[in-house]
């Protein structure tokens, strides 16, 4: 008898002697598999995401993807720019509420609040912001849903602004709080990107309510939900601030 056949015979004998235990293990495996299958079917529910073990893997992978995106991000890598005739008309309104519910901010009393790791936290009026050197861009806004639209925004380069107010540029995060209770945050490297601007105009006109008056962050190196509108306060911090969509499971870095 050849060795392989001998081994096979021994294995068979062994499997007969441990058959009851094997059956138990099989049943346990089967139960576990059906459990995870059942959990998978739960995924179709809106609140349920994934069973906790799987969810922790997915959450960790999303954090890993944050790190990967930070690593491939280049400050001198510019988003493609377009010409006037490429602009999408009408540029779509998009928010977690309808257009009629967009908050109307009183420009006369508006003051942009600054807090956190910033030397000069004096609030800024829209007039004062308009007095700073401006820059405009025609870039593509990409929504995490997949659609995209090309628009023209103008305003204050965010890097200039952060330097002017003495923000700690070695801090990790810049956070935004908005008049529509939206909030989000970005990494400092992306905040300092030359195309990241505090947008005060759309199509050379003062930013209308539907596009985020009086001011929105235009950051063409990130997805749409990282472009907060109706910004009321900006803060610089080393503590992870999260965001409205990010806290619900959307990837935080949201880079493009």
């Amino acid at each position, binding site marked *: 008898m050849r060795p392989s056949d001998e081994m096979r015979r021994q294995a068979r004998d062994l499997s007969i002697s441990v058959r009851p235990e094997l059956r138990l293990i099989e049943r346990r495996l089967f139960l576990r598999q059906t459990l995870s299958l059942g959990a998978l079917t739960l*995924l179709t529910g809106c609140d349920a*995401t*994934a069973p906790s073990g799987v969810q922790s893997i997915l959450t960790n992978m999303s954090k890993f993807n944050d790190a990967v995106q930070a690593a491939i991000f280049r400050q001198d890598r510019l*988003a493609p720019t377009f010409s006037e005739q490429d602009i999408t008309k009408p540029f779509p309104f998009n928010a977690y509420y309808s257009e009629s519910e967009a908050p109307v901010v009183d420009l006369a009393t508006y003051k942009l609040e600054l807090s956190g790791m910033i030397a000069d936290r004096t609030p800024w009026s829209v007039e004062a912001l308009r007095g700073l050197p401006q820059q405009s861009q025609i870039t593509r806004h990409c*929504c*995490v849903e*997949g659609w*995209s639209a090309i628009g023209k925004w103008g305003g204050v380069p965010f890097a200039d602004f952060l330097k002017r107010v003495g923000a700690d540029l070695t801090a990790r995060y810049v956070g935004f709080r908005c008049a529509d209770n939206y909030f989000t945050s970005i990494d400092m490297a992306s905040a300092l990107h030359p195309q990241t601007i505090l947008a005060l105009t759309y199509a050379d006109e003062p930013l209308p309510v539907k596009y985020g008056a009086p001011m929105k962050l235009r950051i*063409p190196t990130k997805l749409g939900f990282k472009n907060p509108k109706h910004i009321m306060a900006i803060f610089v911090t080393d503590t992870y601030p999260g965001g409205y969509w990010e806290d619900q499971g959307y990837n935080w870095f949201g880079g493009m």
Partner: protein
Amino acid sequence: MSASTLNAASGVRSARLRVHPLAVRLWHWINAFAIVIMITSGWRIYDASPVFPGIRFPPQITLGGWLAGALQWHFAAMWLLMINFAVYILYGVMSGHFARKMTPIAPRDVVHDLGAALSFKLAHNDVTTYNAVQKLAYVGVLAAILITILAGLAIWKPVQFQELAWLFGGYDGARVVHFFGMAAIVLFLIIHLALVTLVPSTFLPMITGDAKPAGAAPQHQRSNAR
């Protein structure tokens, strides 16, 4: 003389035929797992903003529960898919697996084998070699996976990988290519699963790695007798 009789005559190896090396089996099942996750989560992502308004996927057959969940699955499984794919391509080229099993693909053989397959006269008694249609389908689906991965990367990072996006005709072009790449893979999957059902003797070797020689499978001999 077939490989089976060679083995039996030499008596060096056991009576069973080596069909798939462990590396190929591991690749196959990891790839199958990753592809199913990518497709079902991708359908949920697609539905958030369909490329073709007339085409939507029923939520019941998608993965993730909602857009954020689907994106988490998609961008987690993409690493499994890409790393597994890259390792397989390296293995296939360096081990000679591709040269040995996927080539040559002569157009004449493809036409002949396709005709034989459609008239149910194609021989399957030797599962260690691929027929010409099989070779073409495997090379084709590998190309489809590669193109879909590249178009996916262009959609994921249209700024950082803008040259790649440009190659696909821009951001929207990459979305169209990504969709048709998926469609090609799904088409392959349907045919692949249908053929495994028709020729079940090909299924177990992808798990165990070996198969009984042709003589031990009478149900196929009958269909191969001409």
